[in-house]
C-alpha cells in the first residue's frame, strides 16, 4: 500500500517528497533500506527526496538510527530535533523541520549558518510573523509552509493510541496502524477536537491554506507542504498545484473541482488567532453557495 501510494506520487505534480518516520521509532514496518528504495524510485522520477527524522529522541537506539539517516550519503535530511542539527552541522545541507522552534530572524540566521538550506515554519506561527521572517531571512535559505493536513500539535512519551486500547506502550501491538487517519478524540458534547496519532497529538480539523496561496507566493514562500491523508491526497495536490500556478499562466482552474466542503477545516493560526478557528474567506463562501445551489 505504501509503495503504491508513492508510485502514484511519482506521477503527480509534486516537486519534493519527505520520506521516513517523524513520530514513533516503533513503527518499523519500513526500515531505512526500504525507504531508500522508495527514495531511489522517486529520485528517478525527477522528485527531490528528503529523509525525515524523529521529533523526540528517548532511547539510545533511536540516536543510532538517526546517525545512519544523517550518514546516508545521498539524500538531504529534515531535522526535527536539535540532535539532528548537531549531527548535520557542517556535514551536509539540511532542512529545519516544523518541530524545531524557528520563531525569529536570529534563530533563522543561526540555523542557516549551521547549514540549513530550507526551514519549515512552526505551525502555530501566522501570516504576519511569516512576513517579518521573510523580510529578514538570509539569502541562501528557502522557506516552506505547512498548508494542508491535520496539524501536528504535540509530542509525548506516552502513546495515546495504546492508552485508548489499554495497552502498555512497550507492547502496543502497533495498534496505531489500524487508524490510518489517527484516532478521533471528541469532547464530551461530541465535538471533534483532536486526533491521536500514537505519541503525537494532531488537530481533528484539517489545516487548509488553499485560499492563502496567492499571499504565500507573494511573500516569497518557496515550498508548500501537504500532509497526506488516507484519501484524497492526489486531489489535494492537484488543487494546490493549480492554485499555485493560476496566477502564472492565467488559466485559473476553478476551485469548485475540488470537493472539499465536506471536511472540517481550520486556518486560525494563519490569522494569529486560535488554530482551531475556520475563517471563511469570501472566495470560500461563494464556493459553498455555488455547491449548495
Amino acid at each position, binding site marked *: 500500500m505504501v509503495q503504491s501510494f508513492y508510485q502514484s506520487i511519482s506521477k503527480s505534480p509534486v516537486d519534493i517528497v519527505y520520506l521516513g518516520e517523524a513520530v514513533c521509532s516503533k513503527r518499523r514496518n519500513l526500515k531505512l533500506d526500504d525507504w531508500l528504495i522508495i527514495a531511489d524510485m522517486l529520485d528517478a522520477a525527477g522528485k527531490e527526496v528528503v529523509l525525515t527524522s524523529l*521529533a*523526540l*529522541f*528517548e*532511547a*539510545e537506539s533511536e*540516536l543510532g538510527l*538517526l546517525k545512519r539517516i544523517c550518514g546516508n550519503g545521498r539524500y538531504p535530511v529534515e531535522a526535527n*530535533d*536539535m*540532535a*539532528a*542539527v*548537531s*549531527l548535520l*552541522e557542517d556535514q551536509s545541507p539540511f532542512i529545519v523541520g516544523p518541530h524545531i*522552534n524557528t*520563531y*525569529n*530572524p*536570529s*534563530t533563522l*540566521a*543561526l*540555523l542557516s549558518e549551521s547549514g540549513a538550506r530550507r526551514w519549515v515554519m*512552526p*505551525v*502555530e*506561527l501566522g501570516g504576519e*510573523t511569516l512576513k*517579518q*521572517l521573510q523580510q*529578514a531571512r538570509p539569502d541562501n535559505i528557502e522557506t516552506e509552509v505547512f498548508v494542508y493536513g491535520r496539524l501536528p*500539535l*504535540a*509530542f*509525548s*512519551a*506516552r*502513546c*495515546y493510541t495504546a492508552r*485508548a486500547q489499554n495497552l*502498555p*506502550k*512497550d507492547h502496543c501491538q502497533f495498534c496505531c496502524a489500524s487508524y490510518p487517519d489517527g*484516532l478521533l*478524540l*471528541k*469532547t*464530551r*458534547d*461530541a*465535538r471533534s*477536537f*483532536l486526533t491521536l496519532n500514537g505519541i503525537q*497529538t494532531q488537530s481533528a480539523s484539517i489545516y487548509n491554506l488553499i485560499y492563502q496561496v496567492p499571499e504565500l507566493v507573494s511573500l516569497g514562500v518557496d515550498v508548500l507542504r501537504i500532509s497526506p491523508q488516507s484519501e484524497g491526497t492526489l486531489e489535494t495536490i492537484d488543487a494546490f498545484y493549480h492554485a499555485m500556478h493560476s496566477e502564472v499562466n492565467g488559466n485559473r482552474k476553478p476551485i469548485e473541482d475540488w470537493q472539499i466542503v465536506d471536511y472540517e477545516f481550520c486556518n486560525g493560526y494563519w490569522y494569529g*488567532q*486560535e*488554530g*482551531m478557528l475556520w475563517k471563511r474567506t469570501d472566495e470560500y463562501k461563494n464556493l459553498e453557495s455555488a455547491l449548495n445551489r
Partner: protein
Amino acid sequence: MKRITPELVCPAGSLPALKSAVENGADCVYIGFRDGTNARNFPGLNFSTDEARQAVDYAHDANAKLFLALNTYPKPDQWQAGVRAIDLAAQLKVDALIVADPGLMRYASQNYPELRLHLSVQGSATNHLALDYYKRHFNIQRAVLPRVLSLSQVRRVALEAPVEIEVFGFGSLCIMVEGRCALSSYVTGKSPNASGVCSPAEAVRWEKQGDHLCSRLNGVLIDEFSEHEQAGYPTLCKGRYRVNDSVYYALEEPTSLNVLEILPELMQIGVSAIKVEGRQRSPAYVAGVTRTLRSAIDACINNPEEYQVQPSWMRDLDKVAEGQCHTLGAYHRPWQ
C-alpha cells in the same frame, strides 16, 4: 559513580514566595519578569525590575542563588523585549539565565559571555547530541530535562551530557514534550512558546448544566463534574474526552509529579539540581514544598542507604498537589 549533592531549585512568582523559598531551604530560586518573556505569564504574577533587584539582593544576602527564567520563543515583534530582559538580567547579576530560544541564547552568549546559561525545559532537549549543539554554540552550563524520560533514560543522558542536568522533582506535570506543544494555542491562540501561558485563565468559563458543572476553554468542553466530584482547573491535556465509546482522561489525569521515592537513584545518577514547579502558586505552597524537599534531600545525603520516604512528607505534598495525588510520571516506565 559520581555522587554530588543536588541543588534544590524552587519557584517564586512574588517577593513573599521568594522569601518562603529561601527561608525553607532552597539553594536557588527562579523568577521571571512581569511580561511575556517567561512561561508563567499570568496576571498579577512575577517581578518588576525593582522587585527583581530586591530578589537578587535578598537571595544573595541569604547565600542563595537567583535564576531568571526567560523561556519563551520571541516572534520578531517580541524580540526587543527578550533582548531587554537579557540586558537587565546581566545588570542585575543573576546567577543564571534559563533560556529556550536559540536566537536569544546567541545574543546572551555573545554580549555577556560571563553570564551563566541554563537550557530551559522549554528547549525540548532530551538527548546528549542536542545538548552538544547548545554547549558548542552558547557554552550552556546546565539543561533542564523535559518530563518525558524514564529514569534509565535520564541516567543515560546525564552520563553523556556535556553539561549539568537538572530534573523536575515536584509539581504539576506536563505530559507533552515542553517547547513542542501547541495544544493551548490551538484552542485559545496563546501557547507556552509564544505567550508564556497554557490554557490561560481568561479563556476559562464555568457553566452549570443541571446538577453538572462544565469547564470550557474558549468554548471547548474540557470536562464536566457531578456534584460529588471535585472540579479541577481546565488544563486542556487533563480533561476527560470521548475516544471510541469511552469517556476518560484520554491524555493525562490531573496529578502532580513527585520524585521522593526515587531520590536516591536521582542522586546516584549525579543530577546537579532538582526543580520544583509552580511560580504561579502561593507563598504557602512554596514554603511547604521547599521544606519537605529540603528534608528529603538532606535525609538522602546524610544516609542514602537508610533513606525512606516519610509518610508525613507525602501527606504534606499531596495536600498541595494538582488533583491531590501524585505520580512518578515518565520516570516510572509503565506510565508510558
